[in-house]
């Protein structure tokens, strides 16, 4: 995420946001550890609700799941697992679209 997506696209009008869900214990503390460990510089939000309310909004059932939202605020891509090529393609297409 950090290098191939955030660093690669941040200058092009793409915002990468990590959403930490389903943490055990102190959700913020766990997320901080993760951010520090991987030296993440993009925005990381914490969904501390036990059942992962935001994840539920998007029908996320497993992690990682990546979502691409277009400039118009509509969902363009939603996929469980990490499909680097598919995600890149979705981002490129979203950038091209009006």
């Amino acid at each position, binding site marked *: 995420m950090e290098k191939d997506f955030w660093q690669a696209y941040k200058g092009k009008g793409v*915002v990468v946001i990590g959403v930490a869900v389903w943490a055990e214990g102190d959700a913020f503390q766990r997320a901080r550890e993760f951010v520090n460990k991987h030296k993440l510089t993009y925005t990381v*939000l*914490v969904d501390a609700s036990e059942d992962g309310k935001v994840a539920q*909004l998007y029908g996320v059932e497993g992690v990682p799941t990546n979502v*691409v939202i277009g400039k118009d605020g509509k969902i363009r891509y939603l996929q*469980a697992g990490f499909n680097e090529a598919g995600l890149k393609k979705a981002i490129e297409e979203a950038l091209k679209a009006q």
Partner: protein
Amino acid sequence: MRWVLALVVGFSFLAAAQTPLKRGMELRYSGEAKLQQGQQSITASVQVIDLVTEVAEKGQATVASLRVFQPQIPDRPIPPEAALRFLDIGVSGEEAMVPFEQVVAESPPFPFLANFLRVLPVYFVPLDRLQVGKEWVTKERLLLRPEVDGEVRYQVQGQEKVGDTACWLVTRSLPKPVPVPKMEGVQFAKIADSLWVNAQTGLVVRLKREGTLQLPQGVLTATIQLDLQSVNPLDEATFAQRLKELQAIKAVQQKLGINLLQNPTKEGLDAAENAIAEFQRQFKDSPYLAYLQTWLRIVQSVRQRLEQVEKQGAAIGQPAPDFELPTVDGKRKVKLSDLKGKVVVLNFFAHW
């Protein structure tokens, strides 16, 4: 590529009345199988329950067998594409082959694994062949669909104990690779079976296999070891009950069908799950329950995948639900709708 590498069946001995197999006898084997292709490998524990339904002249037998696979794939659901073929095969014997009708009900974790596993062709070796240096070649059906017949060579190597049981070690191999017709680049490169045969009864008590199948994309190697756990002559009532159960399993198979798993529908999955549940209700004490449980797991995994795809597919093109969440340092909040006009990538993750 959808095709069925079906079983290798039939012990092709014309063994005059020497079979230790009897109608109503149940043989249970268990063991482990490993399949490897390149860097990928998978192991599965395997249970086999074979029921001898008929013993004909010359020691020929009809065996109904159930193979239960318990795949051990850590942290991975059973991939549906690997999950399923349900076969219902009746094989008639040809020439030296033993008529072998089986209710092959399989739920392989990987099709090829199953194909190699189904290769438990030899249940016994006639006692008069168990002499050092004895060798014979038979023509056996290596695959059912497509039909592949190949020569198989047996060689008695010598005596060896399995536990406390005096056994003969017999090897079974292909004198030459056997091509699989209509499938370019596919051939049985090697089958190296070792059979430990009980010196007193002729029953195979341990089978070890190393098989390689040459595929266009590489070599697939399977190793399997199965050990005979028990031989139980069933009483008439139990035997009748088992036959009834096998018939019921056949009915369940028909509900499941390969199409359902390749092109799942909610209705089809419901019907399959109901059929399995019905079996579980009706046959509470069946030794085949573990087998049905494996199927259930597969059906559920297919359903989960289907629901997820449907849900996520439905989300595409819809407005992204808005939310507001605090940042990891707790210092500010981010509202999704404030980012309108930008392309936003949400990466849901969890860290335990």
